[in-house]
């Protein structure tokens, strides 16, 4: 049996944070939930226990404490909040996997607000130089977490990062959540992944997929 991993989800009451938490109860994980809305957090915790009675999860009142206790930290916060979070957790994130899920989209969803030569993933790595940042879950809609099979295909979840061991560990989490993990490459691939989400969001709006859509590489 794989050893239990303690995973802090910072921003667990967001759509993505909640969806990731619900997916991760499938694995041998201990979840530490942090969010700003206590009522929503309690609701999420009850929902997790309903899904799996012996779920090992609890609400933690401080993002630093949650990250300190964690083996893996999921920064399930918007791009605009990443820098502040990084500042808070820097000292306790050394050596740990920090998952960046954000997409630096403009308010009208028409473009990325990052410069072309960088990405949210790379910026988080710069802010947390001693952590192992992995870009993951950023190309998946929160609504797709309940329906990871679309048109008979298991949706892909792309990951990028500079540490091979960290990539494999995150790939394992993605499998537990129900997606098909695809390692894209080092962290510079975050730029491509974040642009893929920009495209997916716009296609979703234009064609009315209602979030039931995602990327899939077809291959033999």
């Amino acid at each position, binding site marked *: 049996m794989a*050893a239990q991993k303690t995973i802090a989800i910072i921003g667990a009451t967001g759509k993505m944070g909640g969806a990731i938490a619900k997916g991760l109860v499938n694995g041998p994980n201990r979840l530490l939930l942090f969010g700003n809305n206590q009522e929503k957090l309690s609701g999420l915790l009850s929902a997790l226990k309903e899904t799996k009675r012996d779920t090992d999860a609890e609400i933690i009142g401080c993002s630093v404490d949650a990250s*300190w206790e964690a083996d893996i930290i999921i920064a399930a916060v918007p791009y605009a909040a990443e820098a502040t979070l990084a500042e808070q957790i820097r*000292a*306790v994130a*050394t*050596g*740990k996997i920090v998952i960046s899920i954000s997409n630096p989209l403009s308010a009208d969803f028409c473009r990325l607000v990052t410069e072309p030569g960088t990405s949210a993933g790379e910026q988080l790595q710069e802010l947390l130089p001693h952590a192992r940042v992995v870009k993951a879950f950023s190309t998946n809609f929160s609504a797709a977490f309940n329906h990871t099979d679309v048109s008979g295909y298991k949706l892909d979840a792309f990951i990028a990062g500079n540490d091979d061991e960290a990539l494999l560990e995150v790939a394992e989490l993605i499998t537990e959540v129900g997606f098909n993990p695809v390692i894209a490459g080092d962290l510079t691939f975050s730029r491509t992944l974040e642009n893929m989400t920009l495209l997916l969001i716009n296609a979703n709006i234009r064609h009315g997929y209602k979030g039931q859509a995602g990327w899939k590489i077809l291959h033999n």
Partner: protein
Amino acid sequence: MKIAEALQLFLWLIPDALYMFELLLQKINEKVPITPEESAVCKTFFIPKKLRKKQYLLQEGDVCKYVAFVEKGMLRSYTVDDKGTEHIMQFAFEGWWLSDQFSFLTAEPSVYNIDALEDCELLLLTKPAEEEMLVRVPKLERYFRLLLQNSLIAIQRRLVSSLSHTAEEKYRQLLASCPGIAQRVPQHMMASYLGITPETLSRLRNPKNRKV
């Protein structure tokens, strides 16, 4: 704002500066004085990790990926025999290091379990981090050599003790080398560490049975 709240805010603002590495740096400096710059480099290699009571740091069959330094709390390492009996190899209090060196160095699965006897604050070092740290701060080679020396001596003493000492001698030696252990470790675990039955330990602890 109350003083306690102000202090908490202060500590929260600088979580790494004061309390997370306090004991580690103190222990290193006792053996090998290092500069503030070298301390700062050291801090970038340790994984700060909280472990709750009864949680595992290592489970039998897994590879031991870390050496752990105990900033706060207490760890133990133990094996479980075919009958399900636990045999405690080592306790680690504040300021002590613990790992399964064989598994850590060879990446072979461990035969030990390591778990927390109290809520712990640990500093974990992986093999690659250790190697890189020793390149960046070569003085620490001496620190780790002294640690290994002490550990070897402790193991030799424990071996002699377990082969040739009476239960009472073993117990007295443990109390002498780990003052306060009797207050923090349950009696059956001390018995397990000494390789005697809890009943024997209980008899030894009874003042009426004490040989003066």
